[in-house]
């Protein structure tokens, strides 16, 4: 068994609930953005900019960025603890899994910070 020391909620039930809550945020966000883009026949850069930089969408996009980071972390944690194990990969698996998770965590945090820079700096 792989211990849950690197899991987001430190407990399967928390991870399960966080995964569902962030999924709903991301699902609604996807529908809203695709709805805006596909509902405008004559879409201009200005219309898109006005939409994405209005306060409600700035907050919604920020919420979606946090949700994406948590959702992706739980998802990749699950995949890596399922498949990068000593049973499949031998004795190097623990080091490999930790390296993967550490590397992904860096990417994850960079994406959030970068996203916020783009979003709030625009």
């Amino acid at each position: 068994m792989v211990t849950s020391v690197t899991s987001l909620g430190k407990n399967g039930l928390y991870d399960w609930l966080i995964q569902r809550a962030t999924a709903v945020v991301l699902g609604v966000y996807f529908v809203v953005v695709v709805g805006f883009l596909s509902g405008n026949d004559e879409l201009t850069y200005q219309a898109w900019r006005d939409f994405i930089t209005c306060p409600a969408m700035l907050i919604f996009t920020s919420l979606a960025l946090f949700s994406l980071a948590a959702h992706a972390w739980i998802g990749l944690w699950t995949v890596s603890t399922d498949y990068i194990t000593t049973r499949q990969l031998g004795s190097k698996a623990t080091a490999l899994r930790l390296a993967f998770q550490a590397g992904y965590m860096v990417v994850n945090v960079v994406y959030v910070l970068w996203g916020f820079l783009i979003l709030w700096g625009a």
Partner: protein
Amino acid sequence: MSSVFVKLVLWAILSGVIFHFVAGIKHLIMDLGIGETLEGGKNLSVAVFVVAAIGILLAGVWIW
């Protein structure tokens, strides 16, 4: 947005998101206790493939 290559990449990304979206809704439905049997799971999985395929086709129509 006029380049065929850009459109193909966009379609590939949207396809992944659409499949993940539909499969995720299946998870939420099963969390409600619906389709938790082996047969129910198989039926819902088939439904996910069908709905996702329709969505992916519509996304292709939208892009082109």
